[in-house]
């Protein structure tokens, strides 16, 4: 019976074709370095899932942010696990995305016709760093407060528009409830939505062009 249901769906959705083009597509002889893109995608999904779970308890307000995270860590069943995965997954994601970029650079995979894949990839790296930067403030402890103070201060050193960028990031001259709120909004809405959009295009391009052959002796 499942066979029949599957066939009915396949006939209409083209599941078999999807499977072939996404997961069973022809590959050049590769190695483990070729799996870093998939690893980044997996980490993104993991961060998304654990992040959604964290919003069940987290409160983005100076009065409650720290207490709500203490509550997640000490009182909620497996709260330490969910936040632990989110915390370490964030660090790992920056690392994996960065090594992914290095791999593409070393194997010269960014060349024609994959320039756009590279450019979008740069955007993905920056967005990932943005996720790290905005997420770091959310616990609202001394470390995150001062890290964001320094980070926004650095943005302020840019010539001409620096002061404007700093004020925009902080929503004023000081780090305040407004800063926390917009970092939270950026962390759970704006940046993830942009990431998802660009990941979609990135993967489409990878599927469209296939993966590049590693350069040999003659190249």
């Amino acid at each position, binding site marked *: 019976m499942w066979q029949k249901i599957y066939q009915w769906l396949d006939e209409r959705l083209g599941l078999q074709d999807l499977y072939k083009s996404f997961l069973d597509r022809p590959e050049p002889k590769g190695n483990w370095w070729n799996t870093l893109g998939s690893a980044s995608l997996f980490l993104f999904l993991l961060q998304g899932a654990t992040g959604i*779970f964290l919003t*069940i*308890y987290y409160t983005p307000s100076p009065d*409650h942010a720290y*207490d*709500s995270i*203490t*509550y997640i860590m000490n*009182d*909620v*069943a*497996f*709260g330490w*696990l*969910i936040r632990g*995965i989110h915390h370490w997954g964030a660090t790992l994601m920056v690392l994996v995305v960065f090594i992914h970029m290095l791999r593409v650079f070393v194997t010269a995979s960014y060349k024609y016709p994959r320039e756009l894949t590279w450019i979008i990839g740069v955007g993905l790296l920056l967005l990932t760093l943005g996720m790290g930067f905005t997420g770091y403030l959310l616990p609202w402890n001394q470390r995150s407060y001062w890290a964001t103070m320094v980070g926004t201060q650095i943005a302020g050193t840019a010539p001409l528009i620096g002061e404007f960028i700093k004020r925009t990031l902080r929503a004023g001259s000081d780090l305040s409830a407004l800063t926390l709120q917009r970092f939270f909004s950026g962390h759970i809405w704006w940046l993830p939505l942009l990431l998802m959009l660009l990941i979609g295009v990135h993967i489409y391009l990878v599927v469209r062009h296939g993966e590049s052959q590693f350069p040999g002796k003659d190249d």
Partner: protein
Amino acid sequence: MTDSKHLSRRDFLKFTTGAIGGAITISVALPTIGYLLDPALRKQGGEGWITIGKLDEIPIGTPYPFSFTRTKVNGWERTSSTYGGFVLRRSEDPNDLFILSSRCTHLSCRVNWNEEAQAYICPCHDAKFSKEGEVLDGPPPRPLDRYDEFEIDEEGNLRIFFREG
């Protein structure tokens, strides 16, 4: 896996990947259920013994008002609520007590003892309750709640057991 009895390399990898991936998924997915349900399954406590005062100082025949505060913890937030009531000693017998909650059974306003009317009167909708909590007049659906569990400790203090709800 055609006709051969041996598992092909491809099938073996497929199977182990699926099994390990499944095990990891389950070991992360199951805790998330606990994570979501945790506050709902938690006992919030709130109940306990509350000392009202020396029994000797409570007059016989007239309702004696008392009040106390309980703090409840919800997540990282503490809420304090004040409760009140009346002790009525009906005779010298230390166990002949009638302890009423002052919360009106209509809409939870605080009732007051009115000496002239010899009744508890609710300021909200003019409900009247008798000395022993029976509804005399007004909209309340049932008599005033009673604290049935009480004790006199060694020092002669009257204590009641407070339960939520």
